[in-house]
């Protein structure tokens, strides 16, 4: 790595530094405006009636008593929602059928999970709305419930959607089923590969439904104006994705929908699909075009937003004595919830991705169960998959008497290898990331003491480029107003502004980024897939190049030289022996305002790898796992703002630890969610986590990106449960094959061991 004397890598002036984030002061002083802070004149408050049953036919809905309650302005049911036809819709991180999206917004014939919206009310205040919701009379015919994916695949299981047919490797099945899709990746001859192996390990794993756990509940304000224009203010990862869903679900022309994104208190994939926004819009129209605000309670968020899939996974891997893997096979059953669309496709792509394999077969099943419809959650589908594969890899390394890092080094994929799901790998930094852990003081120092163990695991994530549009105007003082449409869920205003500042050769503080709504900037894909710093960074670089061209012309005019003679480097324009800085040049004045815009769609986002190492101590009397030390190395390409890259890694590890140790949806036999609160849904708190040491591996800048950016937001949620399981094995001798590895389960396994 080339280090300049000022400590910045590769000669960068801004990239690699740690300026204060543009949104920081507003957030720490409470001035930032989140969705629930918005207040408009004449505002009404909406509330949703939700199904008390996990599976039931809706026989009738009587809203008359609710409508008669003083203060109630509108009541809606699915009858108020336009009928929409089957249409596959891509929202970047997830794909869904529009008809199912509509039925998830408001149940039409059947309620498919506990908490499924049935009706909604708008009233003068939230208390009246709550009371009115309780006055709606719904007659249900409860139906048998299926909660487990593998049970839902059995003949005779309760069928959730009568018309559903399996998409069997691209061909449609003929029988009613809960299996929405079967996908497969195949290469070589798996059985021949296993025949070659000296050791074969095969294990089955179970993971539970878990939630993103963003602190800010879903919220939205809608105003459906008399002129037919719909304005939505909400907390979302993508204003344009909300616009498109509103347009499709409410059959409104896209030109009649404006979406203004407000600040977001966390999303992690869970704020791409709309839940409340279409209801608020319908209520607004029905209530005489008054604005309607809706906010979920925590219980509603857990019951009826989009957690990620529980799963059952079987992995079989074989290797020669020298450590080389000869064959690997995986079967993944992912629970989609009440409607098709689990992240099993991504899981199938992740599960064997770190390993160079000549013989492989992966089968994935997307299965309906009576749980909320799964939505994206940080590296969707990846954590479940790696939990299974990395535990088997660990066991295989152990059986061969090999160091787990060395075992992975022997089998590591590199540039030019083909992924299980097809694409060729570009330059990646996986091997360098493995070496970063192997050489880290944490890994080199032996772990001592009873009931302690160390585990390692690796993770792969695809990353995404996506479409971005940006524009900028240069102010008279040489500062730059940057307008972007990528909602900022992880510090991206800082990382985007820094890339523009680097391109222009000005200070990060001289770029003022602003995230705006759908009417004020060109199209932007959602903030997801670890794409924003990469993709929107790509766009601001293009924008900066355009601004520099305008500035070169200004300099050429100033010096009366040909524009070809003006060179620009690091914010200094020069021709011959004359030179002038960006700011000085702006101060000279421009006859026309200096503005530019750019729109880009880079398609070669480099995938990310993470290698984690964790030390645990297990209480032999209670099964409680205490994390002693955690080191997470990640292939980050180039860290634009290292603090926020570290923050992404630490946050991802914290979520992965929660998934691994305590988080789970707990249902009774009738499918009622029992732990719909943050007291009983146990995400880790600060006292449950050690300092998470994030190691940024910057050996492999992403080819094709002007600054070598690699998406960093997701991959580090993938290894933690597997790393913990492997550490628990070293500490106790038991292999935990089900998540979460909560104290009671670990204790039970230790007793049975």
């Amino acid at each position: 790595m080339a280090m300049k004397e000022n400590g910045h890598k590769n000669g960068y002036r801004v990239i690699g530094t740690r300026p204060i984030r543009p949104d920081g002061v507003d957030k720490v002083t409470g001035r930032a405006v989140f969705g629930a802070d918005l207040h408009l004149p004449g505002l009404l408050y909406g509330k949703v009636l939700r199904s008390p049953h996990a599976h039931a036919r809706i026989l009738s809905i009587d809203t008359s008593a609710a409508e008669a309650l003083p203060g109630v302005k509108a009541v809606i049911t699915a009858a108020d929602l336009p009928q929409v036809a089957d249409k596959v819709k891509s929202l970047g991180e997830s794909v869904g059928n529009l008809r199912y999206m509509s039925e998830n917004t408001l149940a039409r014939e059947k309620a498919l999970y506990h908490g499924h919206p049935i009706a909604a009310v708008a009233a003068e205040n939230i208390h009246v709305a709550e009371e009115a919701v309780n006055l709606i009379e719904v007659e249900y015919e409860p139906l048998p419930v299926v909660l487990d994916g593998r049970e839902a695949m059995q003949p005779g299981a309760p069928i959730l959607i009568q018309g559903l047919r399996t998409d069997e490797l691209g061909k449609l099945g003929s029988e009613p089923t809960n299996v929405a899709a079967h996908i497969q990746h195949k290469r070589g001859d798996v059985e021949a590969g296993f025949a070659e192996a000296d050791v074969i390990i095969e294990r089955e794993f179970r993971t539970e439904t878990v939630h993103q756990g963003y602190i800010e509940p879903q919220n939205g304000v809608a105003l459906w104006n008399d002129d037919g224009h719909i304005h939505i203010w909400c907390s979302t990862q993508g204003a344009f994705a909300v616009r498109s869903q509103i347009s499709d679900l409410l059959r409104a022309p896209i030109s009649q929908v404006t979406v203004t994104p407000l600040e977001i208190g966390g999303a992690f994939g869970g704020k791409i699909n709309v839940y409340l926004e279409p209801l608020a819009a319908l209520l607004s129209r029905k209530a005489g075009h008054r604005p309607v605000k809706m906010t979920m309670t925590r219980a509603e968020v857990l019951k009826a937003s989009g957690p990620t899939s529980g799963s059952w996974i079987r992995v079989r891997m074989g290797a020669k004595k020298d450590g080389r893997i000869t064959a690997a096979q995986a079967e993944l059953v992912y629970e989609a919830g009440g409607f098709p669309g689990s992240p099993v496709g991504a899981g199938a792509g992740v599960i064997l991705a770190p390993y160079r394999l000549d013989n492989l077969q992966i089968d994935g099943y997307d299965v309906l169960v009576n749980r909320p419809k799964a939505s994206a959650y940080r590296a969707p589908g990846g954590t479940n998959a790696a939990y299974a594969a990395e535990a088997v890899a660990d066991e295989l390394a152990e059986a061969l008497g090999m160091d787990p890092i060395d075992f992975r080094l022997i089998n590591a994929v590199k540039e030019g290898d083909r992924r299980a799901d097809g694409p060729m790998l570009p330059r990646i930094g996986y091997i360098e990331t493995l070496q970063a852990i192997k050489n880290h003081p944490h890994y080199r120092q032996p772990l001592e003491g009873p009931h302690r163990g160390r585990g390692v695991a690796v993770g792969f994530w695809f990353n995404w480029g996506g479409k971005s549009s940006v524009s900028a105007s240069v102010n008279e003082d040489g500062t730059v107003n940057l307008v972007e449409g990528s909602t900022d869920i992880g510090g991206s205003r800082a990382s985007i502004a820094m890339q523009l500042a680097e391109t222009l050769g000005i200070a990060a503080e001289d770029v003022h980024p602003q995230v705006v709504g759908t009417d004020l900037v060109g199209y932007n894909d959602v903030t997801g897939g670890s794409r924003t710093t990469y993709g929107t960074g790509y766009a601001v670089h293009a924008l900066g190049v355009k601004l520099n061209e305008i500035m070169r012309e200004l300099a050429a005019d100033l010096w009366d030289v040909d524009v070809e003679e003006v060179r620009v480097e690091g914010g200094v324009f020069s021709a011959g022996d004359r030179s002038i800085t960006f700011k000085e040049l702006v101060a000279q004045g421009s006859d026309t305002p200096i503005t530019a815009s750019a729109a880009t769609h880079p398609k070669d986002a480099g995938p990310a790898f993470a290698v984690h190492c964790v030390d645990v101590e297990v209480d032999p009397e209670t099964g409680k796992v205490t994390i002693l030390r955690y080191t997470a190395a990640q292939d980050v390409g180039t860290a634009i703002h290292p603090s926020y890259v570290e923050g992404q890694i630490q946050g991802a590890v914290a979520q992965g630890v929660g998934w691994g140790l305590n988080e789970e949806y707990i249902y009774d036999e009738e499918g009622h969610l029992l732990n719909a609160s943050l007291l009983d849904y146990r995400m880790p708190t600060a006292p449950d986590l050690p300092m998470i040491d994030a190691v940024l591996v910057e050996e492999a800048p992403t080819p094709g990106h002007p600054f070598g950016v690699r998406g960093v937001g997701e991959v580090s949620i993938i290894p933690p449960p597997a790393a913990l399981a492997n550490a628990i094995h070293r500490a106790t001798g038991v292999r935990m094959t089900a998540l979460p590895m909560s104290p009671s389960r670990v204790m039970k396994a230790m007793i049975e061991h």
Partner: protein
Amino acid sequence: MQAFDYARVSTVDEAVRLLAARNGDARVLSGGTDLLVALREGRDSAGLVVDVKGVPELMEMFFDRGGGLMLGAAVPCQRMYSDEPIAQAFPGLMDAASLIGGVQVQGRASFGGNLCNASPAADSIPALIVHKATAVIAGPGGRREVPVEEVCVAPGRTQLQPGELLVQLRIPAPEPRFGAAYQRFTPRNEMDIAVVGVGAAVRLNADGDHFEWARIALGAVAPTPLLAAEAGDALAGKAVSEAAIEEAARMAQAAASPITDMSGTAEFRRRLVGVLTRRTLVAAIERARRAGTHWNADLR
């Protein structure tokens, strides 16, 4: 949340009068950390909420080595552990006071409220029971005093009748060579409800090697917090030994009648009763031995 009437009272009599006048739909508000959440979430309803934080007797705390601790029913946990003489005299109560909720909640939540909420998993109740605490209850017919272990009768229910108000908790002064501890097991280290909670208190002989008496109380393993009387009594007169502690732990396990729910299985809970009984007894013995030295130092 439904509308309700609100009254802030300044005397016990006034509170009792208001509570007695309602047909069971009045609720007492002190810190509100349970009541307000329950009302908001629709798990409870109230026609009248009587705020007792303005009643001096409920907000006062007195301690002397003769009369023990008189703890107003609405005194928040934070005031307990911030009071140095009280915190030093009752480390076993402070174990519980510093566990209930986070710092913000401890600024509002009281032991009296924790007792009246009558959760089987309440942290303060096993600690109070092993300290031989009593509850002073005021009602239309006057005042009565009952042992804390008799207050709770079912999950969420106490023996208090409509019109009655918990005024004060009385905790005897620590005897010489007395030690107590409360510990709970939670999957997380913060913001969690006890899967099992165990309080233990011991008084040792002058040499500190025999039990004079012991009390063990259990949380979250029965419909109410439970005094495991036999387990404690069995230690009286015995030498302090691993075997004696093990035997007490076994008896405490026998006294528990845990259920399986989302916090843990019955089997796991019974196991934890044994583990925590051992751990709290060891902690209580350690404190008793140290208290012995301090006590003697005080007398010199």
